[in-house]
């Protein structure tokens, strides 16, 4: 294919990606160094109230917003350097917390709290998703053929459901005296409030995420299991390998590329954990990095959006995903070079 035809085919897609992905990235990068603020002026106001024998007059200095000719508040945009990053990271408070060795103090700072949750969430769900997915795939592969279709249908439901709705549906099972909370209370014979502390919410989020993603891992592993080399399996049997050894030394190595693929996709998707926070309304206890940016972007009570801080936290989030992906990408690059 000639270069010109290639560009003609890829052009529209490339144009959209540049306009709506690459360009916003650049603009986020620049925004993070500027701060847009409303202009205020300080004026002396003399207020007089009628009195006897003379009126009492008070002069005070008030600050009021400067209006432009349309009656809107005038805003200025100024270069603030790394100020927005400092506001998000709060390094001096974090440093003080680290020096004092106080973990709970560090966790009062939104960014570090969000980072802690995002990383633990990603790393804890990863093995669970792969393990559960593999277990379901093995069990389905073991089941009667006529049952497989319905089981796949049921398994796809949690995967396909809207993430916010999925999180909500789990939340409604537990909220207040929801049936699962009632069941747990009856089982453990104690009073339980699932939404009163951070760690129970985190456990629910973890369960939700595994429930949501395990079907994806299952379908891919199931497809992989169909292509396991039967000869290798048979020779393993002849060599006296038991079921566990066959799984460990034949099947899992065969599935290894798929495990890496799922791990990669899961890292990307889990790092942007967000819908769980909305669905479980957990912002008071648990927040994630993406939610932090979202929170800066939503207008506050006065209708202002903290664009500058949102950009800074967005850039920090992005640095995180790049660090997380460097290892897998280096591997792909080596494979590509090896193939040529």
């Amino acid at each position, binding site marked *: *294919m000639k270069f010109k*035809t*290639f560009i*003609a*085919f*890829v052009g*529209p*897609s*490339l144009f959209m*990606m540049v*306009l*709506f*992905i690459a*360009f*916003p*990235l650049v603009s*986020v990068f620049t*925004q993070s160094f500027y701060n847009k603020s409303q202009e205020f002026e300080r004026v002396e106001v003399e207020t007089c109230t009628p009195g006897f024998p003379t009126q009492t007059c008070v002069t005070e200095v008030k600050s009021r917003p400067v209006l432009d000719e349309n009656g809107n508040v005038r805003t200025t945009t100024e270069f603030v350097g790394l100020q927005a990053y400092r506001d998000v990271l709060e390094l001096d408070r974090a440093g003080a917390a680290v020096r004092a060795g106080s973990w709970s103090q560090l966790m009062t700072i939104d960014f570090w709290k969000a980072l802690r949750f995002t990383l633990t969430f990603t790393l804890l769900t990863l093995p669970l998703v792969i393990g559960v997915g593999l277990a*379901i795939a093995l*069990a389905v592969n073991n089941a009667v053929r006529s049952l497989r*279709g319905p*089981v796949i249908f*049921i398994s*796809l439901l*949690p995967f396909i*459901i*809207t*993430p*916010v*709705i999925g999180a*909500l*549906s789990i939340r*409604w*099972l537990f909220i207040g*005296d*929801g*049936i699962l909370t*009632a069941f747990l209370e009856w089982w453990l014979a104690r009073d339980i409030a699932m939404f009163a502390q951070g760690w129970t919410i985190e456990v629910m989020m973890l369960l939700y995420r595994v429930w949501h993603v395990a*079907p*994806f891992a299952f*379908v*891919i592993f199931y497809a992989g299991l169909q292509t396991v080399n039967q000869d290798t399996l048979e020779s393993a*049997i002849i060599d006296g390998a038991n*079921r566990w050894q066959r799984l460990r030394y034949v099947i899992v190595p065969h599935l290894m590329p*798929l495990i890496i693929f799922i791990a990669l996709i899961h890292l990307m998707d889990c*790092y942007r954990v*967000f819908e769980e926070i909305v669905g479980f309304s957990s912002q008071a206890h648990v927040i994630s990095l*993406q939610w932090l*940016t*979202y929170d800066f*972007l*939503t207008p506050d009570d006065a209708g202002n959006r903290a*664009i500058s801080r*949102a950009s800074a936290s*967005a850039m920090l*989030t*992005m640095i995180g*995903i790049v660090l997380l992906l460097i290892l897998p*990408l280096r591997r792909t690059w080596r494979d*590509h070079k090896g193939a040529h």
Partner: protein
Amino acid sequence: MSTPRAMRQSLALRLGSAGFLTFWCIVAAFPIVWIGVMSVKSPVDAFASNPLDVIMGPVTRAGGNGLSVIGIVLGLAVLYMSGRFAMRNLPQMVARFTQPGTVLLGWVIATLGFAVLFIVLFFAVLPVILSGLNAIAGPLGNPVLGLTTEHYQAVWVENAFYRNFVNSLIVTTGVVTVSLTVGTLAGYGLARSGSNLAFWLLILALIFRALPHSVLVAGYLPVFINSSEILRPVFGDAAPTLYGQPYAVIAVLVAINQPFTIWMLRSFFHNIPTELDEAARVDGCSHFQAFRRVIMPVMWPGVITTGLFSFLLGYNDFLVTSLLLDAQNQTMVPAIASYFNRETTTTDQVEAIAAAVSITAPLFLLVMVFQRQIVSGLTAGAVKG
């Protein structure tokens, strides 16, 4: 043929495997089924701590809303018959009444017609017949199962949820059409070019896919809000404010979806032998003609699968739509946030559940119809790419 002894499984293993599978199926389906059950009960029943109360709904029944044994039997019969009709007779009817070129249109009309007929039959005709039957049936006509559709009525009629539904429809249709048009071209180009540039574009797309969406939205938001001022030099006074416009959201979602779409389509195009293009080229087609007349006709399964995943992205999105659309143009998923944030009374909660079930129902149908395509789409990316 008996299985060899070494492959035979012990009873414990078989039981364990079957037990685990049953457990998984219950875990997978339970939350979804449960919100479906909760959505048709009165608030007291829906949040009762005894599961049997939630299923049977005594308070709902006491409120005069319930199904009798006859009602349950008749309702299940209608459901079964309409399901059977949709699976067997509908495809035949479509095949009989459509020309080869208009099959897709025929299916759209058939599905819509079927949906309207079903809703009329199930929610308008059936209750009338049932009330007559229950009156003359004696003990069999007494309600046994509490069931009410008042929350659905409150959501769809009083709170005008249909407006959000229409917005969702606009956004998802736009996202699917545009991203497929742009994506098939790019996917074909990338699959047929072995150059280094193509490799780097794919890696770039992979990095773009990993970006958290909030990072991108942080870039759009200020531009979209001020777009009328920014675009004024170009368009004059007709410059639009992009914030709150569905078409702006469509463009954003298409772009976000593009990396995934081109990866998936590329792997589908890879499965089509290059000899096909070469034959077309020898016959005098240009690259584009070969793509349109020879490759696209055999690409439909891949396009449908990718379209499904684009649909899911547009339909399920919360972050982009909630930040870039204003209240009038809200799609269904962000609209539900206003329900559960309100949540002052338990009635509000059950209404939120009814809205959630309404959002899930189309997805449920989607899995039923397109299960095979979804599975093939999931595996296409992994096993071959």
